[in-house]
């Protein structure tokens, strides 16, 4: 039984707590009741978001950069005063490169933790696995990877390029610059390369008036490309156009180099090699080949210089930044802008406020959210250098995202 003497201090403490809570809400810019009507994990001083990537398993190779970039962005936002006067708190979950685990953790973040937004996923398979969860529980996902398109959801903001943005400008450039007429398409055997190559083939045949002399898919994890390389030598295409991923990527380029297929003899344009992949491949094995994407670490603008510097200061001077890492960095900033425009953390209001949001501080330059929740962005062609960086040789204008391209499906 509580004696009165022990009861009294506790009541006092309670009163003090209530008083400080009152003070905090008076000082914060907007009252809690206004910015959060749907029971999200928002207090007067804090807003909780989720981070859902693979920190373990096969995909950790790729997703580590995204995890780091999102953390950096959130840290910078917090240092500059947070969002609507609230500091961002991160709950990180590990999808462990396993798609059902992604769905389970998404549910935990949305239902259990009531996070206001989630930054996460990398592969299309993981995104497809969490999409029904986000739509049912009405969550908000910022997805960083360039992907095959053919998707649009109220609950997802796609900060990477969809396929037509990445592919068409690249093909146009190489057709014009190198006078390329014949193409050999090579990809890993799953949805992203296959959809990308379908778009590429239509563009080559219908728009560029060129010819596809070969189209090949190899199982994920394939390590022997000798026969394929001999076929390429036999067909002598003007351009080899590739979307090979994972461990296969390294094997493919090492064996190309060993078979004497170098940039001196062969043009090659890839969709799937960023600075991250080059670490494993080695710049000397791909020297002179081209990649088509929206961001390269070597981009020469003040935003990017500051970003690269901050990233290296936090994660070590040897760290590299690939296309997806930069796209992941945009996520928290786009969310901040949308929340401030909406004046609320409510998912419906933030999603509605997102189209039209502009970011002039993006490392890639300028981006703007389209009505279809993808970003307007530029596409660049980078040429691989021996030191593992890219030299930007071409930059397109701002390209409209078009996830359901007519005539390309």
């Amino acid at each position: 039984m509580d004696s009165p003497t022990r009861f009294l201090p506790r009541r006092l403490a309670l009163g003090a707590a209530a008083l400080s809570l009152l003070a905090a809400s008076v000082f914060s810019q907007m009252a809690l009741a206004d910015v959060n009507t749907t029971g999200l994990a928002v207090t007067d001083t804090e807003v909780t978001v989720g981070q859902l990537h693979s920190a373990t398993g096969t995909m950790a190779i790729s997703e580590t950069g995204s995890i780091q970039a999102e953390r950096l962005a959130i840290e910078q936002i917090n240092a500059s005063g947070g969002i609507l006067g609230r500091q961002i708190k991160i709950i990180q979950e590990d999808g462990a490169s396993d798609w059902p685990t992604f769905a389970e953790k998404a549910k935990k973040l949305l239902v259990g933790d009531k996070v206001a937004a989630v930054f996460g996923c990398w592969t299309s398979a993981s995104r497809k696995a969490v999409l029904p969860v986000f739509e049912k529980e009405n969550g908000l996902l910022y997805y960083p990877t360039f992907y095959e398109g053919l998707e649009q959801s109220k609950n997802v903001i796609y900060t990477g390029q969809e396929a037509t943005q990445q592919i068409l400008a690249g093909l146009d450039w190489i057709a014009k610059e190198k006078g390329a007429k014949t193409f050999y398409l090579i990809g890993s055997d799953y949805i992203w390369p296959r959809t990308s190559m379908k778009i590429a083939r239509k563009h080559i045949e219908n728009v560029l008036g060129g010819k596809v002399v070969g189209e090949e898919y190899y199982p994920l994890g394939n390590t022997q490309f000798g026969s394929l390389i001999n076929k390429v030598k036999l067909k002598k295409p003007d351009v080899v156009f590739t979307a090979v991923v994972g461990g296969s990527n390294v094997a493919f380029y090492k064996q190309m180099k060993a078979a004497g297929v170098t940039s001196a003899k062969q043009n090659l344009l890839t969709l799937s090699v960023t600075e991250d992949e080059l670490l494993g491949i080695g710049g000397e094995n791909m020297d002179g080949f081209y990649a088509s994407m929206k961001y390269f670490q070597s981009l020469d603008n003040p935003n990017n210089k500051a970003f690269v510097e901050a990233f290296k200061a936090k994660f070590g001077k040897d760290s590299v930044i690939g296309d997806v890492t930069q796209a992941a960095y945009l996520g928290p900033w786009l969310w901040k802008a949308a929340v401030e425009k909406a004046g609320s953390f409510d998912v419906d209001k933030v999603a509605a406020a997102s189209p039209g949001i502009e970011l002039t501080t993006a490392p890639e330059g300028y981006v703007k959210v389209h009505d279809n929740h993808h970003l307007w962005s530029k596409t660049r062609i980078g040429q691989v250098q021996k030191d593992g960086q890219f030299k930007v040789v071409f930059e397109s204008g701002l390209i409209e995202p078009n996830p359901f391209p007519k005539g390309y499906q």
Partner: protein
Amino acid sequence: MEWLSEFGAIAAMQGFNGLSVFCVLLLMALGLAIIFGQMGVINMAHGEFLTIGAYTTYVVSVLTEQYAPFFGPYYFFLAIVLSFFIAGAIGWLAEWAMISKLYQRPLDTLLATWGLSLVMQQAFRSIFGAREVSATLPEWLMGSWNPTEAIDIPRNGLFVMGLTVLMTGMIFLMLYRSRWGLQVRATVQNRVMSRAVGINTKKVDRMTFALGCGVAGVAGAAFTTIGSTGPTAGSLYIVDTFLVVVFGGASSLLGTIASAFSIAQAQSLMEFFMSGSMAKVFTLSAVILILMLRPQGLFSIKVRK
């Protein structure tokens, strides 16, 4: 006339490619052929022992670049030898701590070694980071050798080929021409009798397992020239490895060689005439069909049960 000489060049390169795939398959399967074939241990962590070799090569390459750049062209040989001993030592430990407790329960070894492979993958990730790394290859291993204008023979392919011949020869000598090999084969054929005539079968097991892992380490070091080095790089090879060993007939070295040769030629030829995925489908179907007709594999030794 010109297209004929070009056709000849492609045929020559394609022929070399078949041989090169054969050597890669054989080299990755040798270690497992010893462990699975001679001891009956289904070692799911075989791929991770390959990875140990790959990371050893990477570390030696980095250290060489930093402290002894003049040694650069030759570091690869040191890396291969070190890979053998490091992978072998870790194999020795694994046998001592885990496998030796499970000899009577083959299915449990399967689970235990699979668990070991997961532990090792995460260990690589914690030590070396999740991203792939690449060892700087010495100049003489890169690019191609041109006997004529139109023919490119990959130098790394030649290197892997030479190493495979060397390793196979050494293992053959050890298994069939040395006292230790005699003891191993005796233990495989009849464990109880071997013990009765004074063979220390425990010691034989441990050495056999360590040797198998060491050979895997050498393969891993060699594969840095043609493939990736990352925490899960070894798992790319594990399916093909088991395929070769089981198809060849588990306890026969000759069978492993024949099996690697036929799978490599079939795969290499079919890949040339159809797409990579379809070639794989046909290769695997053929293997399944032959194993249905001949469950013991291509070659087998008669063992008294």
